């Protein structure tokens, strides 16, 4: 009976190709060609089923990317790549726009400074028609006053997921800044940016994902993770990361 049930569950499952970490032209360090329309077009071309939109400390372009995807068979998950006070990057992802924008408010309340376009680059809010809505004036490249623990806890309070960004990189990662993953930190996964380095992290007790961290169009989908699950929502992604009832992630 048990095996019949797991077989029945597996029948309902599909494998989705996901790149959960893509920047838009709102990130000062991303190319201006990263407009919502171009990103969705490129993601479809790369065969992706799910993309996560994660700009530095902001989510203002997420609704426009979602509008672009309305008539296509691709799911957009709204997120933010938050910079902690330790200068580590954490990806937070949400199902609901309310939760996403509540997270953004927490970040904005703890983020000081004004952007200098000449030094850091433009921070452009662009709509689904490729029209400039406005320029974000905040210092998005800066660090918030939120600790890593605060960021993870806030994301979870809002029913989101928290993934440590590019932990294999020598800068702005939890491991570069803090030496190792703090004990008791409730991360949902670790993101590895170079597939060749995945093996180093396989012994850790946290699930692993790989994503592109694309800042330009031709990096979209360069790294991705396959999620085997029933449908696309954050709860299914969470359950896949935990490997529950036949769901799985393959990097």
């Amino acid at each position, binding site marked *: 009976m048990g095996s019949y049930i797991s077989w029945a569950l597996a029948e309902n499952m599909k494998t989705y190709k996901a790149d959960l970490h893509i920047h838009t032209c709102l990130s000062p360090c991303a190319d201006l060609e990263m407009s919502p329309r171009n990103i969705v077009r490129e993601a479809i071309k790369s065969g992706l089923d799910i993309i996560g939109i994660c700009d530095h400390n902001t989510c203002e372009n997420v609704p426009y990317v979602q509008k672009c995807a309305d008539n296509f068979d691709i799911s957009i998950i709204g997120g933010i790549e938050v910079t902690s006070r330790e*200068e580590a990057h954490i990806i937070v992802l949400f199902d609901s726009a309310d939760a996403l924008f509540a997270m953004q408010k927490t970040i904005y309340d703890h983020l000081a400074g004004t952007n200098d376009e000449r030094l850091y680059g433009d921070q452009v809010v662009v709509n689904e028609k490729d029209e400039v809505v406005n320029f974000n004036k905040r210092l998005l490249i800066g660090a918030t006053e939120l600790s890593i623990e605060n960021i993870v806890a806030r994301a979870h309070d809002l029913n989101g997921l928290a993934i440590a960004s590019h932990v294999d990189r020598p800068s702005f990662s939890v491991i*570069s800044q803090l030496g190792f993953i703090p004990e008791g930190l409730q991360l949902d996964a670790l993101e590895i940016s170079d597939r060749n380095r995945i093996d180093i992290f396989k012994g850790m007790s946290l699930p692993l994902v790989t994503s592109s961290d694309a800042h330009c169009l031709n990096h979209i989908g360069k790294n991705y993770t396959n999620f085997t699950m029933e449908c696309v929502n954050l709860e299914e992604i969470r359950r896949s990361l935990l490997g529950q009832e036949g769901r799985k992630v393959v990097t």
Partner: protein
Amino acid sequence: MKIADIVQKLKLNVKSGNDLLDREITGGYVSDMLSDVIAHAKTGYIWVTLQTHLNIIPVASMRELSGIIIVNSRQPDPDTLKKAEEEKIPVLGTDMRAFQVVGKLYQLGISGEHEDI
């Protein structure tokens, strides 16, 4: 040079490890990236940083550092100080910037040099 000497000369606040101030300082290191500290700090070094996260204590313990100076008036979390007491790591605070602290330590004869450089 002992921790007690620099506490007195640099007017540092002792935040943990009041009973450990007779430790000898062999040199120093300044960095806010803990992975870098793990890679380069040596036994007995005093570590100057603005990080206050709990992880600074295990790093200091692993490298057998003589103590940590937290600069810029930053306040370590209560958890950090609790762990510091457990791991017997002196944590010292100051309003000074890292540059000033390191300059003063150098004047006292504490250097960050070792044979690899």
